């Protein structure tokens, strides 16, 4: 039963997670109070004029949207891979068609410069 397998996974995750938390909180570090001048972001002696949390201009946004569309298709790919050999040529043509259709999207995106930073 796979639940037992998942238990091992859970235990591994919990133990490493606990190790990480212990590492951060166990004693031995030099000091707890962090003074304000130390807390200023490091800019080689310069200063930030505003908070860094801003409406950041993510220059690759067309790519992210293309990725979301493409990733939907991965849902179908995995089950397809499992039955591929038993279905044979039919699976090859079907997925060839499907990937072909999506490749047109990638080609189009490339042609229109979607994979460059805006």
């Amino acid at each position, binding site marked *: 039963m*796979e639940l*037992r*397998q*998942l238990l*091992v*996974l859970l*235990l*591994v*995750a919990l*133990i*490493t*997670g606990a190790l*990480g*938390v212990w*590492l*951060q909180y166990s004693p*031995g*570090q*030099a*000091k707890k109070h*962090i003074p*304000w001048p*130390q*807390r*200023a*972001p*490091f*800019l080689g002696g310069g200063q*930030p004029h505003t*908070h*860094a*949390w801003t409406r950041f201009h*993510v*220059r*690759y946004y067309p*790519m*992210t949207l293309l*990725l979301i569309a*493409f*990733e939907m298709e*991965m849902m179908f*790919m*995995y089950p397809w*891979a*499992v*039955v*591929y*050999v038993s279905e*044979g*040529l039919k699976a*090859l043509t079907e997925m*060839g068609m499907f*990937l072909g259709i999506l*490749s047109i999207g*990638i080609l189009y*995106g*490339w042609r229109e410069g979607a*994979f*460059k*930073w805006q």
Partner: protein
Amino acid sequence: MSLALLIVSVCSVLLALAVGVYCVAAFDHAVEARVSGARGGSALMAPLQQAALLWYAPENRTETSDIPAWRVAPVLYLMFAAMGLALVPWHSRFVPVDLSTGVVLWGAIEPLATVVIFLKGWAPNAPFPILGAYRYVSLGLSYILVSMFVLIGVALPAESLQFKAVVESQAELWNVIRQPLGLPLFLIVGLGVSFWGPLNFIDADDLNGGGAAEDSGRIRLLWAVGRAAMLVAFSAIGATAFLGGWQGPWLPGPVWLGLKTLALLLVLVVLGQYLPRPGPERFLTIAWVVLLPLSFLNLAWAGVEALL
């Protein structure tokens, strides 16, 4: 599964993780010393010394930071790496986590790692870390499809999404020969997920350390351990998917797996010291225009090969 097997499974994964992390650090130090020609410290002691140094280093925090995210991100990253390593079969009769959808779970670990790496740069609320974080996301979202296609390629001949079946399908011929494009593409993804060497877009030196610029002490130690652990998990998965996992003559299975993993680790570490970091924009184009079509080609090749 008996209680004893459960304990053995968990302990062996953790032990492999610890040994692997140490090996990565030692390899990296040895390669770096060899390249730079610097004498100083033995490669065997250096990882422990560095760890002890970071253990005692004082911590840092920025003015207005997202402290929970700052603290949780490296812990989660380490957890993901350990979970990935747990999926690796050591032997036909000993697989710590033998999931029927192991390949898909590994595929899920990669985007989740992207999320926590983004948080690493986001949390300090400082210009350089945040630049690094966004830069990394452009990388993280680009290699995901490549990784998935490559892993689907190895699932085809196995007729299963289970890593054990993937290894068994390589009894006659390893996937590294059967699908020659697979392993190189997978290694590129590996450098990306563990933001190592040329694909270290977040902690880059042209950002004064980027996402790590405001990190100090224990948090840096934890990230260093996590990155090394991710590299180990990646090499182990790579050895399983492409180098026939436990299979090999004379030696017992787990030894073969260990040797193959170490070999891949060494390749990754050497690549990390040898290749320059491409510009983030250039890599985005490369990933979609070169690597993704190559992974299509790899899949088509694998498909035709599996039917023959």
